[in-house]
């Protein structure tokens, strides 16, 4: 049974068909990257899974349970967690307090402080615990939010461009962290543009284009796929259409 599954998921904004019959399934323990050119519908699919948008039709299943009608916070409580693209942190509060808010209901009050210390050390933010989160560097903000997201001990971690704005070193370190979390059993779905990062972490890659699943496979399959290269270059050559994937591009 897949951990998360979308079945014939559709989302229309007026006449705009942003998510078009998307079937996506992640097995437990999988690291799955979602790629695609701008406007492919990656963020919308994310928000549908999170419950921030209601689908026009279709269903979303989490560990076999139909969660399509659940509110966001209920989905989080069932074992999802998310890191947003723009760091979603509490800027006017201290770093420590950010983590406290995330963790206060997941740990015994007597052990909360030491658990926060442990996570701060893991995030390399111990020296910054007292600083306001809004004053951290961009990379540190990203790490802080990842810390908040994983402190919920989710079964499924959703990452929306986790490495946006990070240096190559920070990106690599983030990739290593994701691999470590995955080794402990966490399933990960990430929207990502950085192909080096995708190559580092992904077991499986799905390419979205114009709201549809355009291609799916290992990173090597995707890189070798000329149609995928074509949509990224923004051209629909005769060659590309001739080799179209099922459910692919209709330009």
């Amino acid at each position, binding site marked *: 049974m897949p951990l998360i599954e979308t079945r014939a998921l559709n989302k229309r904004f007026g006449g705009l068909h942003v998510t078009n019959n998307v079937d996506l399934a992640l097995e437990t323990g999988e690291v799955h990257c979602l790629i695609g050119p701008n406007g492919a519908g990656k963020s919308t699919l994310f928000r549908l899974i*999170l419950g*921030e948008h209601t689908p026009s039709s279709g269903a979303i299943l989490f560990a076999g349970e139909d969660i399509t009608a659940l*509110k*966001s*916070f209920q989905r*989080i*409580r069932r074992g999802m*967690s*998310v890191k*947003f693209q723009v760091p*979603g*942190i*509490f*800027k*006017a*509060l*201290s770093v*420590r*307090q950010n983590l*406290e*808010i*995330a963790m*206060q*209901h997941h740990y015994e*009050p*007597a052990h909360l402080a030491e658990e926060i210390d442990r996570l701060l050390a893991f995030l390399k933010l111990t020296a910054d*615990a*007292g*600083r*306001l989160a809004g*004053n951290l560097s961009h990379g540190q903000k990203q790490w802080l*939010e990842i810390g*908040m997201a994983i402190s*919920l001990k989710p079964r499924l971690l959703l990452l929306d461009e986790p490495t946006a704005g990070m240096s190559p070193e920070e990106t690599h370190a983030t990739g290593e962290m994701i691999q470590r979390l995955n080794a402990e059993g966490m399933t990960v779905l990430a929207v990502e543009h950085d192909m080096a990062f995708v190559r580092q972490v992904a077991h499986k890659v799905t390419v979205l284009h114009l709201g549809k699943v355009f291609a799916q496979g290992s990173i090597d399959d995707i890189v070798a796929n000329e149609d995928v290269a074509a949509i990224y270059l923004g051209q629909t050559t005769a060659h590309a259409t001739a080799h179209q994937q099922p459910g692919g591009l209709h330009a």
Partner: protein
Amino acid sequence: MNALTRFLHRLEGPQTLGRGPAFWAGFLVVLAGACAYPLFSDGYTVGNTVYFFTWIFMALGLCLIWGYGGALSFGQTAFFGIAGYGYGILTINFGAAYGFTFVALILAVALAALFAALLGYFLFFGRISGVFLGIVTLSVTLVLERFMAQTAGPEWRIGNARLNGFNGMSNMPPLTLPWPGGDIVLFPDVQLYYVVLGMLVVVYLGLRILVNSPFGNVLVAIRENPERAEMLGYDIRKYQLGTFVIGAALAGLSGVLYTSWGQYITPSSMGMTAAALPIVWVAVGGRSDLTTTLVGTVTVLAVFQALTIHGSQYALVVMGAMLVLTVLLAPSGLILALARLVARPFTRRENNNLRGDA
């Protein structure tokens, strides 16, 4: 660390200014001064001071809703009025014997809280926020004012209590403490002063504990980033509703105390001017902190009182000017800015760390 000490530890924390022996020594000095004050004054002046105190509960309630929760509500006066009228109707009908006035106080505050729960349910579960929350709550208080203003006819009565339209309801009994050997009637004098001062201390300390608790953590998280708060698994609507109801109950307490203080309440207590004043008190003091709100409210009320005595028609204009100046010069509040200025030499120069670590 057992549960009680952890509870008391929440008197100070990241959500409140003031910590350590110096702050609490200062707190005790101010409290002792407040307790000793009637010894150096006459009953009439002390009675007038109570009048200031009655408003502070409403201001602290707004501080909780707006400063901590980030929801600007103009509706505090609606709950103030509902509780004030509620107290009047109850006590005019059932009298003041056997300490009933305090039962009436609790019932009237509960009525305001119930109304807030109903209104808040539709607001927060309907995901209304920002400027629209302000518009709806302002409309509610203005509608209540208009409604009460047209109840002049004799048919508008509940039991023995005439609502009396724009002239307002009067002659309800003041708060009365049952006491062996004769009830103590709390006229605006020294006795009432001590009762209200006691309530004020309890409410202030209680709110400090609340905002430094896990509940308060979620509250400021919602103010900072509601989406993130929800994506940590919190049903933010429930937290917002709870805060709204607590704030409304405090406004209701102000309404009851005000009504029993002057034995009088009118629809204009829910009008436009009345609705705007709590915003001024809380904004000028510094809405993001309970202590600055308290100090700010007392200061602004004292200035307002002095102005009303010496040049009545300009008092409201000055209030407006004060709000504009605050927004332009010290958006987080004048008292808060002052407190930071005073505290600066004493705090370690950690980079941009305004409040320190928990």
